[in-house]
């Protein structure tokens, strides 16, 4: 899935991606630029504390990405597109993920 960097994210150095309901799955979500994806090297990550199977929890959830300061206003600019992927069970394995994003800060 893809998100675009907001002005606030560039100013804060933190990208906040709000999801409408806490997902069942969990793990580490990695962020890539198109270039870094080719190299399989994420530029940031966030934890996804999922609800787990059987839970009826329905709260909003947020992915909290700390952006690399060296990349701000260089590779990472307002409206830059980021590709989000979920950690796989193998080292360096990244899986596609789809979340119902309601807001990007």
């Amino acid at each position, binding site marked *: 899935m893809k998100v675009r960097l907001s002005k606030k994210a560039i100013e804060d150095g933190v990208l906040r991606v709000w999801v409408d309901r806490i997902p069942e799955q969990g793990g580490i979500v990695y962020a890539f630029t198109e270039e870094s994806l080719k190299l399989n090297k994420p530029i940031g990550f966030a934890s996804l*504390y999922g609800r787990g199977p*059987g839970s009826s929890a329905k709260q909003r959830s947020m992915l909290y990405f700390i952006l690399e300061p060296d990349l701000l206003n260089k590779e990472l600019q307002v409206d830059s597109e980021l590709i989000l992927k979920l950690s796989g069970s193998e080292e360096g394995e990244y899986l596609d993920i789809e979340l119902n994003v309601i807001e990007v800060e």
Partner: protein
Amino acid sequence: MTTIAKLNFLRKRAGLPLIRFDLMRLRDEDIQDLREAYFAMYEISDLAPGDRRGYFAHARGHGYDLDLCHDDNRLFLTWHRSYIYSFEKALNSALQWARNDTELELTLPYWDWTQYAAATHAPNGIPRVLNDEVYDDVNGLETFNPLSSAPSLYRRVGLGLSGDDEWTTRAPARLRSEIPQLENEVARYLSNPNFYAFQSDLDFGAHGMVHVVVGGSDPNSRLPFPSGDMSRLVSAAFDPLFWLHHCMCDKVWADWQALWPNSNVPQHVLDSVVYDGRLGRDLIDNEHTLRYIYSEDSVEAAIGAIGTSAAPPLVSISAAASKTTPIDLGTVEGGFVRAELEFHKLRPPKESFEVRVYVDNPNCTASTGYKSGGYAGRAVFFGHGPCHGAPGHCNPELAHRDRYDLRSKHPLRYDHTRYRIDITRGLRKFIGRKKSVDNLCVYLVIVDESGKQVAQDALIYDQCSLRTYAHA
């Protein structure tokens, strides 16, 4: 030695708030108290899963199977403050139960996950006290460490696992490398005076990260996801480390409150009811309402600050019971519109039975019936039944509540009970047209479910009085 549990008992007696310490500050005896308290909670849950002093009764409230948490992310801080408060009180109740010592006030320590030291932490970043599966007890015997893993109701009942698979697991390979980042993050959150912004960054930042990296990645996990219990909210609270992690989150909030004393807490947070029925507004002031504070200092420093006390323990004075058979009501005047026999501090009975009241009939029995013989009225008591908890569960004397323990009262407390039996018609009939009757006595017949009369001591109360009402 003055342990933390003893120190806090002294502080409570002195009217001071209890102290929650950094886990790394605990001495061997304090760690032993913590281990024993956790183990006692597991034991209580094994004896009776529903016993509120037990581990399952609390852990299941987070995600399995009561699923009380995570419906409103705006209540993250108040919900968890209330949650670990109730857990902490149960932890202390369990230690008191295990030690048969009521003069203990064990508090939950916080695990400061922004710190790491090779001498005290496992290479994976978890303090050894929480990480190592075994420890050497006072006799040098290798003993299971109940802080490293706990039995999980989610695993046992939800997933049908048994044996070793019932116990929580962790795969924290990534935790240690995250620790420096967590320290930076906490500093960042503390700099933001906006409550919701501070809360959501802590919730979905460091708090979530610790959950996910402690659970870690484990392809061989017996859970329906490839990681340990901490990584999903349905299972997380069964990990014993969960409570110390959330104690740290609560401390970060307390630190933020100290930094920003004039920051507004949103009305929605103040007005919302959270875990154990507490209102958000009653959870804001941890020091004065909940009676606890955090300390980064050593336990010795806190002991030095309070001094030692040689004062004898407080002894409660119990009221003398004046149970009487017959029950002498003295002079009773007629002309009332309603008359009730009122029992004060009546102990909720274990068995179900019927209590019949007869006026001026010392020979009344179960066969006297309702039509004659001075019958005045009756009440049927619905007994609470045999104890379904661990030993001590149905003893309200072991569940003392005060301003240091705001859990709901024990259901069998009798301090404020007032049971009334309407005896209007029978008493009116007896008094008839007289203005008053002197030395009026009533008699009780107690009948069990089979109609058989049982001994008078089935009904235990402190006092009985007649309450009459006149026309306004």
